[in-house]
């Protein structure tokens, strides 16, 4: 069980934060292009999930897996999107992402009046707390 990387995307799809732990293949795209591709992917998938659902308002995209990785998605009511890529054998970690948002993101980023939620995050406190949080998860392995 491996954690590859984490994306945090803002309300309007701007990239707020990116961190990778054990990513094995860096893509041939630039950081900026990759973030845009991720935003596009999530936007289309959420719409797709909504449209495919049999009753209105129930289809919420949570995760998908391919043969090599699993993508977990969580969106806050304010539109902040957390995306975590892990290996396929990791259990759904929707709850972990919401904990991460509530206990780390809100405490260190949202409550900081000097950080606008449209700019990339450069808080070392956030990064240390995030690292500690991810590394204590049972599914994280060195």
């Amino acid at each position: 069980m491996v954690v590859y990387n984490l994306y945090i995307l803002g309300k309007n799809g701007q990239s707020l934060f990116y961190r990778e732990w054990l990513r094995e293949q860096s893509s041939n795209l630039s950081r900026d292009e990759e973030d845009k591709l991720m935003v596009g992917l999530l936007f289309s998938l959420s719409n797709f999930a909504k449209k495919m659902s049999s009753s209105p308002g129930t289809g919420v995209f949570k995760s998908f897996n391919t043969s090599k990785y699993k993508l977990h998605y969580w969106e806050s009511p304010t539109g902040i999107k957390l995306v975590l890529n892990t290996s396929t054998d990791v259990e759904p970690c929707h709850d972990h992402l919401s904990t991460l948002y509530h206990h780390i993101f809100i405490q260190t980023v949202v409550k900081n009046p000097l950080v606008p939620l449209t700019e990339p995050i450069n808080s070392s406190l956030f990064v240390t707390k995030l690292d500690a949080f991810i590394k204590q998860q049972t599914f994280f392995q060195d």
Partner: protein
Amino acid sequence: MRYNFSILISSLKVVYGEQDGIKTGQVLLNYNEHEVSGTSVRDGSQTGTPVLTLLADKANYPVNLRFGVPKITSNEKIIMASTFHTVFAFSCQLSPQPGSSGIKAMDCGSYKFFCFQSPTGTKFICQTDTKVTDERAEAFLEKCYEIYSDYALKNPFYSLEMPIRADLFDIHLKSSIELVDRPLMRS
């Protein structure tokens, strides 16, 4: 009953006032025993009667209205298929590990979604409830591929990339769907 409708070009849609199990986003499907197509009731007359004129007339009450999810038109089906196609390609590109396939399974809370791609690129997609396991769905899609190659591809009257119209294909597909459903009903 208080519902607010918005009239779209093609249908009557609830936009405000969720009540009695009727949710926003649903559209009017039936007026009494008649089917509603677009904004008019198919009551035998040539053009149909507009629903809103019928609802405005007190003499018509009580009425029986049935709401439901709008049917997917074939145009929308094409849009969804192409959306999925792009998303599938994106997911290969964004992979943190080399040599990843596209999306194989998707969890959407109230339902699951599976995709199987054959070596030639044909995609088999199914939507299931949350109880269906990945293995079972995968086995089902592989079975679909088998049926597709046996009864569509081997059919001399079938041309590639065209809708499949073959009775044998339908029959076998139906029976394999029943096989997936049956063990679920028991449990």
